[in-house]
């Protein structure tokens, strides 16, 4: 499938949108603060928001080209759109909602209804009406409805933002299943670092209607300006060993390895790890007699004081790691750029961000 190429200019309220990026198969996250223009960009791609200039095309299929005077209506763009608020048709049953693209949109599908129903766990709800569904169920129907439109491109506009934390946790595995299973470009708008870390293969960071950076989830989310109060690092690596007795696994990252407590990991698989900056301690020398399982030899590349705490950027091999310690410790250790230190990470505090198959 040809990647979707986007090069657009237009207005969204008070500011200008001017972005250029490509989205191949897999999940590309449009990531940025609320009001950065992410949703407007998605609507422009879908054809439901006006744009002034540019070109949107997937291979030879051109959706929009201001120079050639092409502007396909939304129905002809072969997209599936999952809206923030679901937008299920209230007068139609779940089954009729799911199959809307078939009977009203005349889209012939390669996917079968029962496959999608199974993927999203909707078998028990087919004859219900949207009003009687929970928020999480509604969003699952919305995702299924978009999948059954036989999309060549799937657009998701903060599909989890209308849900509370528990509902989100309920839906994320379904989204992961969709992301892993689908071979089409998926554009996923979100301002939530957790969601992006778990789902995205690539991240396009949007700021004030412009592309600020494009890169892997690790590159973009690890960027210090994205670290909120609770800074963290995303590391990508491969599982090299599993100890079923203790429920731990070792993951090779660059030249080093990190041990974490995790079940269901398979040696050889890629994983993404998330390490909160506050879980990383720093020692000037290797330590003995400690319960902490991970000791990584690092070099300090930046020290930045933020109030009473200090953020320390570290490297080991080509990898980066962010630590957050008290300003007092940082001063007592006399941390400075270029120093060699040991980063200490408890195995239980390493979270798995997402398993890549």
């Amino acid at each position, binding site marked *: 499938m040809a990647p979707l190429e986007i090069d657009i200019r237009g207005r969204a309220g008070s500011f200008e949108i001017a972005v250029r990026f490509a989205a191949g198969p897999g999940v590309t996250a449009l990531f940025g603060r609320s009001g950065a223009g992410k949703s407007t960009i998605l609507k422009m791609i879908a054809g439901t928001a006006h744009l002034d200039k540019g070109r949107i095309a997937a291979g030879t299929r051109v959706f929009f080209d201001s120079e050639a005077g092409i502007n396909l209506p*939304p129905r002809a763009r072969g997209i599936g*759109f999952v809206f923030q608020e679901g937008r299920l048709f209230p007068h139609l049953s779940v089954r009729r909602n799911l199959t809307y693209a078939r009977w009203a949109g005349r889209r012939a599908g390669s996917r079968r209804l029962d496959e999608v129903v199974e993927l999203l766990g909707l078998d028990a709800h087919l004859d219900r009406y949207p009003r009687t569904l929970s928020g999480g169920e509604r969003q699952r129907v919305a995702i299924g409805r978009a999948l059954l439109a036989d999309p060549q491109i799937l657009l998701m506009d903060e599909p989890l933002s209308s849900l509370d934390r528990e509902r989100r946790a309920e839906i994320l595995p379904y989204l992961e299943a969709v992301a892993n299973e689908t071979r089409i470009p998926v554009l996923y708008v979100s301002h939530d670092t957790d969601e992006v870390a778990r789902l995205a293969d690539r991240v396009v960071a949007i700021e004030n209607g412009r592309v600020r950076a494009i890169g892997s989830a690790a590159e973009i989310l690890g960027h210090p300006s994205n670290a909120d109060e609770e800074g963290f690092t995303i590391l990508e690596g491969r599982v090299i060993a599993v100890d079923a007795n203790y429920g731990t696994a070792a993951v090779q990252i660059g030249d080093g390895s990190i041990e974490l407590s995790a079940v269901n990991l398979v040696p050889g698989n890629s994983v993404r790890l998330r390490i909160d900056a506050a879980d990383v301690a720093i020692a000037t020398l290797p330590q003995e007699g400690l319960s902490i399982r991970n000791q990584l030899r690092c070099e300090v590349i930046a020290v930045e004081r933020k109030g009473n705490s200090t953020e320390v950027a570290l490297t080991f091999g080509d990898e980066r790691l962010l630590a957050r310690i008290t300003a007092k410790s940082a001063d007592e250790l006399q941390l400075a750029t270029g120093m060699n230190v040991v980063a200490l990470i408890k195995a239980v505090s390493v979270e798995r961000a997402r398993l890549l198959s």
Partner: protein
Amino acid sequence: MSGAEIEILLLSAKVALAAMAFSIVPAFAVAWLLARGRFAGRALLQAVVSLPLVLPPVVTGYGLLILFGSQGPLGRFLESLFGISFAFRWTGAALAAGVMAFPLLVRPIRLSLEAIDRGLEEAASTLGAWSPVVFLTVTLPLALPGVLAGVVLGFAKALGEFGATITFVSNIPGETQTLSLAIYALMQSPEGDAAALRLIALSIVLALGAVLASEWAARRLQRRV
């Protein structure tokens, strides 16, 4: 019920049903323009549509007589083209009833169209549906409660229309004498009181039945939405 009373009832029903059948589509179109249209004369259209509600019915009836009477421009045009004449015919009573009921039909439809989340139509279009299909599968079903409310209100109004009807097509038994006109005629004669009361009771039963039926239908529609 006597034969004459049944005749009056059937005539009234025929007039009111014909009035609804011919005004529902234009009423929906006008409601659509008022709810969705962005054009210069929108406020004027709104005012013109509401006119029968605020004008004295006699004025509306006289206006119809001038326009649709046998000598009126529209009356002559329709007569020569389709052979439809309105003057002193039941069709004229239906026209008068339809015009008088029109604003009552438009208002609930307009409100229900305005209440529809446009995002649902947008969603339908991203799912591949082109606009006529979006209208039939999303807009129209969601506007249905409003259409139903309008038709019931309009039907009740058409059934009881008096002023415009008597001005336009007079009070001819068997042709234009609907329920209200018959009650009025009976009250004019010294021994008509008992018969008038019977028709009054009948019209109360009819009105009550119509309102209850619409409530029931509206609840059935609403249950899903």
